[in-house]
């Protein structure tokens, strides 16, 4: 075996190990959801396919899964939309204006986002209770928007800084005001970036557990992560099959979004704007 071949094999082995490491839990989750009993790996247990857990999750009214699903989509959608619409003008300002210490601004924003969620959650609970917003979408959308904003700002800043400055200078000379230039030129040109930022923001909100757990007490605004965490069988046992089925269903929209829009995310629209 020559050296190059050996290195190739090592690369392959590494890739396989990495893939198993990453996908293993998800495969296990999907298999558990489809198995007639959760301990199918135990000696003598065996695997038999069943769709019962999925049907249970979707049909059992006391589990409220469809409501959680809808809540998750609404809350994540609004949070992503709000945070991107606030972050886009901010990123435009950070990349375009000669603000002294703009890097400091960016790092301050990043630092704020490093606050552990736990340190905020009790205050948020008090605030939302006082406002009477517990179990409303606003109780989740507002904190999520603020929580995702730093991430959105950072990603958008990196996308916007790749849009050649002469393009928005051209828009300014052509008669646009600064916001018009942002809306008519920067946003369309950076659309793939904005889209992937929104997608990431959506996924972040979609996955969030702690706030959702604390700021909702029933199914009216509770999202999937909190919902699944609180799944309970009839006799207080953990219904593993249902939990895994719900989790599997939850992965579907996120994966689907990514797959469908993958091309848009990767495709660079700036091609041909200026001579490279």
């Amino acid at each position, binding site marked *: 075996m020559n050296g190059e071949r050996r290195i190739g094999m090592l690369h392959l082995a590494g890739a396989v190990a990495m893939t198993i490491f990453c996908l293993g839990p998800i495969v296990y989750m999907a298999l558990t959801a489809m198995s007639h009993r959760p301990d199918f790996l135990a000696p003598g247990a065996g695997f038999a396919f069943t769709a019962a857990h999925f049907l249970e999750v979707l049909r059992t009214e006391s589990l409220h899964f469809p409501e959680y699903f809808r809540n998750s989509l609404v809350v994540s959608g609004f949070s992503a939309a709000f945070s991107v619409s606030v972050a886009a003008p901010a990123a435009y300002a950070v990349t375009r204006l*000669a603000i*002294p*210490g703009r890097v400091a601004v960016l790092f301050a924003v990043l630092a704020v986002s490093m606050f552990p969620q736990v340190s905020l959650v009790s205050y948020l609970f008090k605030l939302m209770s006082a406002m009477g917003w517990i179990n409303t979408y606003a109780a989740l959308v507002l904190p999520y928007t603020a929580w995702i904003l730093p991430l959105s700002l950072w990603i958008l800043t990196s996308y916007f800084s790749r849009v*050649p400055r*002469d*393009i928005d*200078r*051209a*828009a*300014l*000379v*052509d*008669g*646009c*005001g600064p916001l*018009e230039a942002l809306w*008519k*030129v920067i946003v*369309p*040109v950076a*659309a793939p970036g904005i889209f992937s930022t929104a997608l990431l923001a959506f996924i972040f909100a979609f996955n969030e557990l702690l706030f959702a757990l604390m700021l909702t007490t029933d199914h009216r605004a509770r999202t999937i992560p909190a919902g699944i965490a609180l799944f309970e069988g009839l006799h207080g046992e953990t219904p593993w099959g249902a939990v895994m089925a719900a989790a599997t269903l939850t992965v579907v929209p996120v994966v689907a979004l990514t797959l469908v829009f993958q091309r848009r995310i990767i495709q660079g*629209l*700036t*091609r*041909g*704007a*200026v*001579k490279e």
Partner: protein
Amino acid sequence: MKLSFRDVSKTFRSLRGAVPAVRGVDFSVEDGELFVLLGPSGCGKSTILNLAAGLERPTSGEIRFDGEIVASLEGRVFVPPGERNVAMVFQGYALYPHLNVRENIAFPLRVAGEAREEIDRSVVRTASMLGIEDLLRSRPSELSGGQRQRVAIARALVRKPRLFLLDEPLSNLDAALRTATRAELRRLQRSLEVTTLYVTHDQTEAMTLGDRIALLRDGRILQTGTPRDLYEKPQTPFAASFIGPYTMNLLKTDLEEEGGVCSIRIGTERLPLPPDRASGARLLGSRKILFGIRPEHARAHPDSPDPGLRGIVTAVEHLGRETLVTADLGGASLRAIAGEGTLKEGDVARIAIPVDSIHVFPD
């Protein structure tokens, strides 16, 4: 429209300190004139263009369009770029990548809120003026450099701007296309009679295009004048060496005076100066002077009894019909033009210096 800059300065401030880009610049561009800002990179010429466009605010001084102030820090006036009705062609074209050619050209009219039919008519008229009617449906990414250039010019000219600003518009084109586009730009600018500010670092472009040229260095205007003025009467050694097809010979030497006749020493050779040049040199008030002669004015011949400076040819560059020879005059080297094939390395050459073409600068 007449554009004027009155003592305009621009200093960029960052955490690392203040960087002056433009220092007290004064000039006017007359109505319909093509005015070239010429200088090496970093001389502030693009900043001046951005100041005229309104993309930068001056740190001091004022800018006027037809006498009306559009930017003045002291007067607290600043008309934003969108309200100045100026058009700009960027070095990298800066086309909108998400729009096709038609939409790119229509963009300024759309922003101005013109009627659709009016926009369509203007776009087609401008596109046909530039010969790009066939490209209206294409995206910028599908165009060649020359085509992008035309689209950028069309977008700039579509709404009859008061002021046309061009930032090194030809520097990304290959040589043949550059010459052709240069001529076309000149023709367009003449026919539209639009006041134009043109930035370039290429002296050939400046000489062939400009009605007048301002030569810049380190944020200051060194000299303003017609191309001929700058070529024939450079006021500084920098102007002398920057302008012209070949870099001017500039030699440090001493002015010598013997019995009322002035002369200078070049290497081991002595060159008498005619009385008018000598008096000019004397006026400089120093014996140390910089002697200048353009290579294309100095003529090198094979050695002969004719008057001229004697030197040994050290290098020969073939230009086609002629050659550019470098000759060593005993310690000083001088470049001159010779007929093709008349001189080769190591030959003794006799270089004739026409007295009218001599430049004298203080050293």
